[in-house]
């Protein structure tokens, strides 16, 4: 120890310390060079990379959903608009424990399993930091309850968003259709980019057919966000373009009258302006409230609608196919004259049934005791079946099918809505394709009174009636009168399009049938005279029809009271008025209503009254 102390030499020790200090200094420089090298790599070599990362960190693209176009009736009455409604929305990125949050939220508001399912679906296709609706259409009480407790929930928001609203509720639902939440299937038909931020899409009817027009264009907002995803400022914005407004041909007042005229019965009615094909009313009964579907209909409500035996969801006006019954008689009557198979004054004798040569089967007239001597006018006025059995027999199915097609039977009208069906105009060709069987002469006969395989949609029937009233000029029926381009401040009118023109051989032929149809309502023996013709203020041309739902056995009797409602005949009525210068053509079908004259004709009259007498 003392030996070492003697060796203590300040000079040497100082040199040692200095050597070590220099060494340490070298070390510090070396290590700092490492840091500098690292910085060089980050800031110079990989600068681009990190620059991109930094931008994607802070800049987020937000989609601004456009406001859906409004729908007005022909007089400017609002039929569909958008109202602010409160939604409960969640930003997934800002929620730590989603399940716990959902559980807690359900203490304050009802969240159905369906809401949850939709929410999870939307969650999968969301963009980062998008707020996903969990519940739509919160009521005031729910908003209040949530607002008080919102501070507990990170990433949960209550947002007021414009939501589709149908101010008239159930009225005109089948004409309008409705919007609903976008689901997986809808994504197939639209681009996900265009619908970023959009929650609803047209599901049915006009809302679906004109989806492109109504939807508008999505806007884009580039926003700068902080690390918590909160928007701090908008960097750039392309505002959304509002969807175009639709001005319909529908007269909402008329529509309402028509709906009410059904008085709870099931069926359909279509009113068309024969001069241009504008659909004035499109009714399918029963109706339902489309607002239910906008915010996600509950299972209970949906099942009630779906399972109701009256099938309110079914749009009968476009999709319902019915045997037209005697409403086809004016058409065949015209064909008979035009093809010179019959003459107007030519009579047959109706004994209550008709028999084909060499056949035992009796084709019965609805009037058991027969109509006696019948010319064309009488056969239409009194709806004599035997006359038309005979006429059909002489015309043959080929001529009939060809002629009826010219008035639009058996083909879609091409109306601007969804769900329209073809109907059936039977022919030899159709039969072969249908069941591979040859055409039997008997089938021609029943086709002649609108029974058998022939089916029409109410829209078809109305449009054919309109074409008839215009002497064979058939317009394209349509629901939209004009499209109002909000952003371009212009309006595109739908042009009335003639889609079929039957060239009359002789104007007189049409006149004879027309006169007979006037007689149906105004003639003392007309089938609709008693029910609507006695006190009518204008001249109407019409034709009643009764369509068999099931076939009566050869020797059985159809007793209305004994037949359960479901199997009762459908009641039909077609008409146009004023007869001399028709402005409205109507077709009415009342399912299982019984007789066309007593059930369907009054509905048609109420529609015509409302249109012709109360028109402002």
């Amino acid at each position, binding site marked *: 120890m003392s030996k070492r102390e003697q060796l203590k030499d300040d000079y040497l020790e100082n040199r040692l310390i200095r050597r*070590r200090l220099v060494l340490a200094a070298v070390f510090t420089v070396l290590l700092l060079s490492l*840091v500098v090298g*690292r910085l060089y790599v980050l*800031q110079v070599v990989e*600068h681009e990379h*990190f620059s991109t990362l930094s931008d994607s960190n802070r800049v987020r693209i937000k989609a601004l959903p456009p406001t859906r176009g409004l729908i007005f009736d022909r007089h400017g009455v609002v039929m569909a608009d958008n109202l602010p409604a409160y939604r409960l929305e969640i930003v997934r990125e800002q929620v730590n424990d989603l399940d716990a949050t959902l559980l807690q939220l359900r203490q304050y508001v009802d969240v159905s399993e369906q809401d949850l399912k939709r929410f999870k679906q939307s969650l999968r296709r969301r963009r980062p930091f998008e707020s996903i609706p969990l519940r739509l259409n919160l009521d005031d009480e729910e908003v209040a309850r949530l607002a008080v407790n919102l501070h507990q929930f990170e990433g949960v928001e209550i947002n007021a968003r414009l939501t589709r609203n149908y101010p008239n509720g159930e009225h005109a639902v089948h004409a309008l259709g409705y919007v609903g939440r976008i689901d997986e299937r809808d994504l197939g038909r639209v681009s996900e980019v265009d619908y970023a931020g959009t929650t609803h899409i047209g599901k049915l009817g006009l809302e679906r057919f004109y989806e492109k027009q109504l939807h508008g264009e999505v806007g884009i907002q580039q926003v700068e*966000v902080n690390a918590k995803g909160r928007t701090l400022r908008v960097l750039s914005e392309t505002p959304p373009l509002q969807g175009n407004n639709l001005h319909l041909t529908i007269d909402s007042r008329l529509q309402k009258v028509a709906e009410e005229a059904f008085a709870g019965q099931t069926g359909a009615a279509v009113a068309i302006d024969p001069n241009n094909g504008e659909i004035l009313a499109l009714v399918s009964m029963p109706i339902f409230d489309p607002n239910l579907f906008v915010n996600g209909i509950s299972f209970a409500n949906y099942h009630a609608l779906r399972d109701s035996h009256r099938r309110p969801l079914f749009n009968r006006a476009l999709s319902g196919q019915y045997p037209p019954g005697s409403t086809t008689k004016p058409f065949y009557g015209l064909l008979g004259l035009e093809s010179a198979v019959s003459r107007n004054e030519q009579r047959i004798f109706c004994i209550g049934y008709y028999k084909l040569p060499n056949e035992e089967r009796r084709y019965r007239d609805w009037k058991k005791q027969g109509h006696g001597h019948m010319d064309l006018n009488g056969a239409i006025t009194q709806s004599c079946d035997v006359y038309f059995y005979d006429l059909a027999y002489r015309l043959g199915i080929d001529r009939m099918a060809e002629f009826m097609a010219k008035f639009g039977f058996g083909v879609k009208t091409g109306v601007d809505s969804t769900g329209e069906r073809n109907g059936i105009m039977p022919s030899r060709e159709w039969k072969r394709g249908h069941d591979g069987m040859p055409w039997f002469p008997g089938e021609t006969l029943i086709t002649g009174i609108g029974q058998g395989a022939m089916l029409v949609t109410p829209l078809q029937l109305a449009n054919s009636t309109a074409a008839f009233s215009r002497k064979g000029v058939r317009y394209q029926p349509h629901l939209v009168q004009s499209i109002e381009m909000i952003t371009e401040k212009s309006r595109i009118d739908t042009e009335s399009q003639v889609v079929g023109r039957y060239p009359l051989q002789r104007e007189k032929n049409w006149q004879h049938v027309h006169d007979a149809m006037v007689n149906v309502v105004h003639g003392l023996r007309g089938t609709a005279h008693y029910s609507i013709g006695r006190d009518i203020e204008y001249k109407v041309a019409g034709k009643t029809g009764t369509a068999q739902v099931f076939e009566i056995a050869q020797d059985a009797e159809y007793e209305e009271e004994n037949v359960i409602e479901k199997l009762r005949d459908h009641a039909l009525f077609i008409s146009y008025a004023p007869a001399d210068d028709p402005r409205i053509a109507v077709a009415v079908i009342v399912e299982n209503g019984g007789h066309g004259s007593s059930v369907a004709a009054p509905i048609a009259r109420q529609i015509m009254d409302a249109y012709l007498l109360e028109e402002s």
Partner: protein
Amino acid sequence: MSQQLNADALSYSRRIIDALRLDPVLLSLLLILASFGSLMLYSASGADMASVVRQGTRIVVAFMLMVAIANVPLRVLRKFSIWLYLGGVAMLIAVMFFGEVGKGAQRWLNLGFIRFQPSEILKLAVPMIVATYLANRVLPIGLRELLVSAVLVAIPVLLIARQPDLGTSILVGSAGFFVLFLAGVRWRVMISLGVILSMMAPLLWKFALHDYQRTRILTLLNPESDPLGSGYHIIQSKIAIGSGGIYGKGWLNGTQSQLDFIPERSTDFIFSVFGEEFGFFGSVVLLLLYLAIIFRGLYIAAHATENFGRLLAGALSLTFFVYLFVNTGMVAGMLPVVGVPLPLISYGGTSMVTLMMGFGLIMSIRSAKRFLV
């Protein structure tokens, strides 16, 4: 005339600095650094003048403490070091029992009128006691001195690591180590110690480290493995620095920092704000400023009149370097996340005060020369 006046003013302030026994070079460098720090803090705090004022107050207090210590004669400090050490260790033990918990660690001691971390005292006390112990021994030191010093260093280091405060225990440990290093521990000894330590590394990994410390090290190796958890700091910090480029986005314009993507951006991660806003160029200038301070400290050590001053000034300067290296290395994603602030720039008073007191010691060492001459 005005030049004359200027020169007068200069010599006047020079005289004040001399009278206060301060080192003008070190003082100017520290002042430049502190002003840099305030500017940086203003930006990192989101243009919050209040925190700059608060930090400014701490800087003033810290500088006053530095001046005070610079004026305490070195021999007094040397005599005091044993009491400082013993007191510090006693308080560390007290912390174990009565300490207050903050951020998951038991580091704080509340004396009623003041709440502080005793571990900070050890940052000065350890190099002082080891330097005091070795000053009169023959250098290079022998095994006996090495062992005694090792025990002196190990006691507080282990106590601090237990809190747990890995950052501070590293700083205290390295302060002690640097005294030994400068006192000439033989290379043989150092190499064998290094070998033993690296052989013990797996054991340390398993028993000495806390779970979160292990995660931090693993995260460093692969930050992307947990981008939202522990890797988040490193990823965001690297993005900030990297996106700064050569010249940076400009003061107050760093998006990563201003938009809150960098966690702890005004404290431990303030260097990534600096890197983002001033770029590679600014960062290198800042590092050079630090290097100048360290070199000045080493220079003073080399020119001190006795071993105590040489060892202490050298060790303190090198500890200052450890602060810098550990912090910048961590922020740049080279070292695991350890709670070591960027000296004199990070927001917070504790380390600032200790560091400036350390510079007070260095200045006292510098003036001690003249008294002896």
